[in-house]
């Protein structure tokens, strides 16, 4: 696998409309790496907050007795898409990629597909 920096760069460079990306550990809520973002959009804060989203969804599935795993979670804002992709690699249990997209420029289906590819390459 490429290292985290290369992976994050690849996300921003190859996915149309991507404005920020973070690799996050969802037990501790720590971003292991971030790229992009801005003064008004702190990816570290977003990473920590979105761990609660992932956890809540996992708990709900547990309560419902659903056996499948989460592949990705999409959150649609008026002007942004937030895409969370859980990493399923060998040792990558407990990590997710968090991608922020500009809704005007992004192609959602393409972005999901590319993020899946990048996640497979990550192979932590």
């Amino acid at each position, binding site marked *: 696998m490429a290292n985290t920096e290369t992976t994050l760069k690849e996300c921003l460079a190859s996915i149309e409309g991507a404005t920020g990306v973070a690799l996050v550990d969802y037990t*501790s809520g720590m971003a292991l790496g971030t790229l992009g973002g801005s003064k008004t959009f702190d990816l570290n804060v977003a990473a920590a907050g979105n761990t609660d989203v992932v956890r809540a969804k996992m708990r709900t599935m547990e309560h419902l007795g659903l056996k499948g795993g989460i592949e990705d979670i999409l959150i649609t804002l008026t002007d942004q898409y937030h895409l969370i992709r859980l990493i399923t690699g060998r040792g990558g249990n407990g990590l997710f990629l968090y991608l922020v997209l500009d809704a005007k420029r992004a192609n959602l289906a393409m972005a999901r597909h590319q993020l899946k590819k990048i996640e497979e390459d990550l192979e*932590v």
Partner: protein
Amino acid sequence: MTVVDSPPPRLPVRDRATAHQRAGAGVSPMLTRLAEERATGVLDREHGTLHLAEGRVVHAESPLAPGLDEFLTAHGTLAAEDWRDAEDSGDGGRLLRHGVTPGALELAQASALYDAAYFALAPSSTPGRFRYGTAHWLASVHPVPVAALERETLRRRALLRRIWPDPATDGAPLIRAAPVAAPAVPPRQAAVLEQVDGVRRAADIARELGRPTFHTLVHLRRLAAAGLVSPQPPPPVLDVPPEAADPYVALLKRVRDALEAL
């Protein structure tokens, strides 16, 4: 009569904003100073050790946290003898030749570093000691600025407090509790819960599972909040009968008993 119309001198008031900043920077003032002077060497603290290179933290160890070797070998990424081989030669490149990908090594090192540093930077009762020296052999894998490490450590403390404010499950041997309506437990927490046997502490469970200790603390606090786990109460202080200790007291008691029996 003279009228004093100049206002009384302002009393010194502690500026809350800067006081807060100082408290924030106060994880370890020594570490902050070492970062400023871009020091290289080893900082020994009560609960762990931080390795610095050029003022950045490059490696951390704590008896309470599993080491990088344990993360890499626990999940079959690396054989134990391959780790020893790399460690003995002090060559990080050997790990990569033994089949560890650079990304996996970097992420495992980052997890191990933040985990051990959380304990190393815990409030201590003894002063830290710094030895200037050469950089750690894994210095280039994932260096972390001191400010980022301190910020993360404070965030981690706050996270634990938010989940469940009682720190008792962090260090004590743990026992299972049986709440009336036990909530469903997610798989990663369930693995932790299975290890709770009345003897193991959080750090032992983390080693057993090959996971960071801080993550185990998070799971345990959630389990404690759900009422599924509680710290082993300290053993009752054994009331050593004073008779056993002091023959005169024993004799006097027997005499008293005899007199009472008359």
